[in-house]
């Protein structure tokens, strides 16, 4: 079974600073998608960013970017210019079986300090 490790249960960052959340995973597949989802206290999971494993270029979405190292099976999320609204649980979710099934990590709780 695929495993996903988010080694930082909690992280904190000062407003306007940069923070990086780590994620490693185990897969035998060669082509898949990877996702970062955000879950604020309201519980609604929201997609932050998506990366296609066959693409060498790291995905970027405004203040959010990833560092995808396919060989190392690492998929970290960088949040630049952190805002109070970024405070949430962040889940890493690599796809399995053609990305039709997502396997979620345990999450990292991000606190943004004013």
């Amino acid at each position, binding site marked *: 079974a695929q495993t996903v490790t988010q080694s930082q249960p909690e992280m904190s960052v000062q407003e306007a600073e940069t923070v990086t959340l780590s994620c490693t995973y185990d897969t035998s597949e060669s082509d898949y998608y990877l996702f970062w*989802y955000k879950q604020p206290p309201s519980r*609604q*999971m929201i997609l932050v960013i998506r990366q296609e494993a066959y693409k060498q270029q790291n995905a970027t979405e405004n203040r959010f970017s990833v560092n995808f190292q396919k060989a190392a099976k690492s998929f970290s999320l960088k949040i630049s210019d952190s805002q109070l609204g970024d405070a949430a649980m962040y889940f890493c979710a690599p796809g399995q079986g*053609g990305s039709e*099934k997502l396997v*979620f990590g345990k999450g990292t709780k991000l606190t943004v300090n004013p």
Partner: protein
Amino acid sequence: EAGVVQSPRYKIIEKKQPVAFWCNPISGHNTLYWYLQNLGQGPELLIRYENEEAVDDSQLPKDRFSAERLKGVDSTLKIQPAELGDSAVYLCASSFRGGDEQFFGPGTRLTVL
């Protein structure tokens, strides 16, 4: 565009009672997912539908859990009888097709007393 709708948002029941959760996916989304999220954990897939067909129900505890997606639109997840360990958040998600971005509903928080 309306998002994924789930009801109820909260449910409190006594153990051994039945309970049902309802999900209405985004219009046009063929793939529907039910997830279980325990406190402090990431979501775990229970069942995935492609239209009205359950294509992955390997993680669904079939002795007490059942699901249906009649006409390939709305879906219902049922637990009968509920146990204390079923207390969790049940999330529904949908996507246009398997592998695409999944859009999640707000979830149903179940408490079994």
